[in-house]
């Protein structure tokens, strides 16, 4: 598996950027061969700004707080949360949008943060597992996971809790079958699915009870 650091060393040599272009011009290196940008700048000013590949400053709205970070456009939201913002609840497991351990909620919808670019997440309301217990008191979904022993090693748990919260926000009174389908985007290799589904059904009752 590649890490951002590995690639950046390799890639810096052939950087393809406005800055690289200007530097290249000054240093007399052959960056002029980088087609598109040169052609584009010769024409009218492009209507859309192009950023990167060097790092850009971004602002993210996470759990109701504003965070600032500096990331290359290729940096995922997951890596930004974990490596820059110290929000390590979302886990990096498959890093290919298939296991669910990195699940977060973006504009009220569950998503895989490993497969979202951090630059794309600007202007959206992001919820992570850290936002569920602001006062140190467990969210009803987390409490239900505790009560039903819905984890073993626990590595998939933050993703499952967020997927469950997102699911219950849209389906407050689910059936067992709906819970099963609704959590179809998350994997647990310890096989705790039975406990997880019971936890979600209990959480639905508890949340409903509170609102009633």
């Amino acid at each position, binding site marked *: 598996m590649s890490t951002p650091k590995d690639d950046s060393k390799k890639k810096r040599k052939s950087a393809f*950027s406005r800055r690289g272009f200007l530097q290249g011009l000054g240093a007399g290196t052959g960056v002029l061969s980088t087609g598109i940008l040169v052609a584009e700048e010769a024409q009218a000013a*492009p209507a859309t700004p192009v*950023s990167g590949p060097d790092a850009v400053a971004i602002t993210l709205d996470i759990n109701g707080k504003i965070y600032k970070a500096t990331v290359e456009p290729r940096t995922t939201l997951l890596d930004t949360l974990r490596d820059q913002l110290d929000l390590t609840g979302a886990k990096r497991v498959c890093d290919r949008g298939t296991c669910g351990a990195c699940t977060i909620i973006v504009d009220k919808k569950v998503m895989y943060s490993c497969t*979202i670019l951090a630059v794309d997440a600007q202007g959206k309301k992001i919820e992570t597992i850290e936002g569920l217990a602001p006062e140190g008191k467990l969210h009803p979904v987390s409490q239900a996971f505790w009560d039903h022993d819905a984890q073993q090693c626990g590595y998939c748990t933050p993703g499952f809790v967020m997927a469950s919260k997102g699911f219950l926000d849209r389906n407050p009174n689910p059936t067992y079958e709906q819970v099963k389908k609704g959590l179809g985007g998350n994997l647990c290799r310890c096989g705790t699915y039975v406990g997880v589904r019971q936890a979600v059904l209990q959480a639905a009752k508890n949340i409903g009870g509170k609102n009633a």
Partner: protein
Amino acid sequence: MERFEYASPSTVKDATALLGPSWNDAQVLAGGTDLISMMKDFVASPKRVVNIKGISELAGILTTRSGLRIGAAVTLDELSMHPLVRSEFPSLITAALGVSSPQIRNMGTVGGDLCQRPRCWYFRSGHGLLAMQDGKSLVPNGENRYHAIFGGAPAYFVSASSLGPALAALGAQVTIASPSGVRSVAVEKFFVTPKTANDREIDLHPNEIVTGIVIPSSAASSKNATYEVRQKEALDWPLATASVALKMSGGKVASARIVMGHVAPTPWAASAAEKSLVGKSIDEASAEKAAEEAVRDAQPLSQNGYKVQLAKVAVKRALLAAAGKA
């Protein structure tokens, strides 16, 4: 992942101006569920990524004079929740919900479903669409249990699109924008079997963007359904699917469209089966016979003979579902 430039235009015109003459110059980012993973695996390394999620022209589902227009950036979740799509096009709903991870449905788009690259493990490991090594395809003598049972050499991958077969059966058109204008192509022609390693599996040029789908008004009167056969209920692609659209007249089939998925490099129309149903009513026997016709020309590989039976079952069950007899 290689480094890239990033732009987020707000109009289709600006977006196409940001693309280039080759796939290495720039690629379009919508839901990202395919492109970002391919960039992580160095299967795609564009110098520029153009995010099209901020383009309002690509959003929304609306009824137009030519039919139901579905924006390319509509997510699979939005598609599956749309009341009109739910009432008129159950075949599309089944196909969209078959993408069985809620996260993928919330992120992935209609345009992205059509443009996603094949899941063939040789392609994903860098051997190209034709899975070549030392001038030979790795598929016939290699691991081929999920590969094509139709089409034959030189392409053995299967189209990964979930919506493609359903849209093709409904006679939908893909609208495509480029810097020089807009064109439209039938969904069944949009998917193409590559002849050489440099060909693409869809009729799209590097400087073009899929802007939407139009399902013709006439399709709304069809009885349509999709049936998917899969190994797992969640988080996987189907092994074989069939989408059908039937025009009925007095309880008999006036015309039928039957398109199978995940069995060939493109959604695969079963023309003989379509013809065999004309003038008949749909029941166990006629559906079974059409299903047999649909897989008659299958050419399974060393490990995927089982897919012939799955495709046959998918066709039969899709027909019965469309006729309300499932």
